[in-house]
């Protein structure tokens, strides 16, 4: 719906709340990239900055919830307006979770900096983070421009992140089997990898909200999955 409401204050309210979501998205993207950089560079100050920054993300989610509740109460949105209000709530909730994962990555970075380095892990997790940030950024662009094709593309790309995670899982397993002293850092690194993989799932959820917002229905066919970790370890896998 590109046409404007007869009551223009309604347009302003809807735009304002969507603007907050975009701002929140930007903050979350920065948090992920900073957390990944801190991990790769073993930069404790930067990790601390990410941890502290999560409060602002949480506060913004609360503000979005409040503004949307007001909008629903005062404007009684229907049809695509209602879907916009609902998608705003869901997307803000997904972004908040992603922010938590970035914060968790920063926390583990503080611990990992005290331990010996697992070669290649920091770089691999940084590449994975970049892929996820790109997905997130495209999902939010798709939201902003109501672009279903781009949203579908993001959904399809989650497969690549799943594959990256599976590869890292095997790599960490190998390090841990080689030398038990690797177990503690590799466990932390594995949780980080898993959390980045979960961020990809949230980017996918946001894309699905875009599809719901535009078409009025959630995408039906299940998306391709490439996370074979749940079966890894079984003989022959």
């Amino acid at each position, binding site marked *: *719906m590109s*046409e404007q*409401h*007869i009551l223009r204050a309604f347009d302003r309210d809807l735009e304002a709340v969507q603007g907050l979501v975009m701002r929140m998205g930007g903050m979350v993207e920065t948090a992920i990239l900073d957390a990944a950089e801190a991990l790769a560079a073993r930069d404790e100050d930067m990790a601390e900055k990410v941890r502290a920054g999560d409060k602002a993300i949480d506060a913004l989610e609360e503000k979005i919830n409040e503004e949307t509740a007001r909008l629903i109460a005062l404007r009684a949105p*229907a049809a695509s307006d*209602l879907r916009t209000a609902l998608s705003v709530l869901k997307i803000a909730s997904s972004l908040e979770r992603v922010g938590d994962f970035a914060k968790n990555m920063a926390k583990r970075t503080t611990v990992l900096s005290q331990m010996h380095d697992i070669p290649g892990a920091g770089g691999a997790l940084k590449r994975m983070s970049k892929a996820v940030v790109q997905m997130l950024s495209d999902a939010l662009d798709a939201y902003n421009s109501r672009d279903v094709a781009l949203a579908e593309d993001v959904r399809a790309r989650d497969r690549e992140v799943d594959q990256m995670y599976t590869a890292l899982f095997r790599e960490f397993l190998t390090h841990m089997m080689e030398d038990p002293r690797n177990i503690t850092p590799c466990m932390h690194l594995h949780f980080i990898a898993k959390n980045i993989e979960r961020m990809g799932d949230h980017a996918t959820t946001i894309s699905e909200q875009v599809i719901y917002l535009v078409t009025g229905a959630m995408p039906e066919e299940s998306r391709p999955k490439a996370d074979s970790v749940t079966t890894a370890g079984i003989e022959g896998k």
Partner: protein
Amino acid sequence: MEDMRLADRTASARENKITARGVQVYYGTNHAIKDVDVDIADRTVTAFIGPSGCGKSTFLRCLNRMNDTIPICRVEGRIEIDGEDIYDKRVDPVQLRARVGMVFQKPNPFPKSIYDNVAYGPRIHGLTRNRAELDEVVEKSLRRAALWNEVKDRLTSPGTGLSGGQQQRLCIARAVATSPEVLLMDEPCSALDPIATAQVEELIDELRENFSVVIVTHSMQQAARVSQRTAFFHLGNLVEFGETGQIFTNPRDPRTEAYITGRIG
């Protein structure tokens, strides 16, 4: 979307009470209703929405032949209630209106007592044999209209002395006194305050256990609150007709979307 209101899922399973096919209405040369097909389900509230002049009230008035009273008005097409053509020559419009009751925008009680207002229909249609039966019908109708407790001690006072909301409920009691099968309501709450509106809406929800209710309303929120099915009229056309939850969350026609979201359509 069919599941929007779980309690009302059965709505779509109800039998059709009214079937309209190819209905055209002309006021002189003005083509007010253009080829409308619609099925109104039994024991269901159906809301007609649309901008002023879209034909929703005109169509409503076709359903009990109220348009017969307008000399320049011409109705074509076929409207059946329980399979019977209501425009058939053998159908007496007065008898039809006992089966298809109507409540109007402005409460219009007769300048008679509360009792006589409700007793009017049963009396002229000879529906009761004696005073005791008539008393029973009056009480039952006033109870159905959720008015009994407020007026039982002053049934002989004039109906026009009641408050606006009470007057409207009195008109509803009068309309249900003849035990109609269908109740037509033309903006029944537009002259009422929010409390009286809520009481009438609660009443509409109760009435659908026994009647097929068709309500014309300018308040989209009211249509959303009380109806199970919603029809959107625009420029004399029936643009979209569907389950109320679907119409208000995911309308299929862009004109419906523009109207219910308050955009310039």
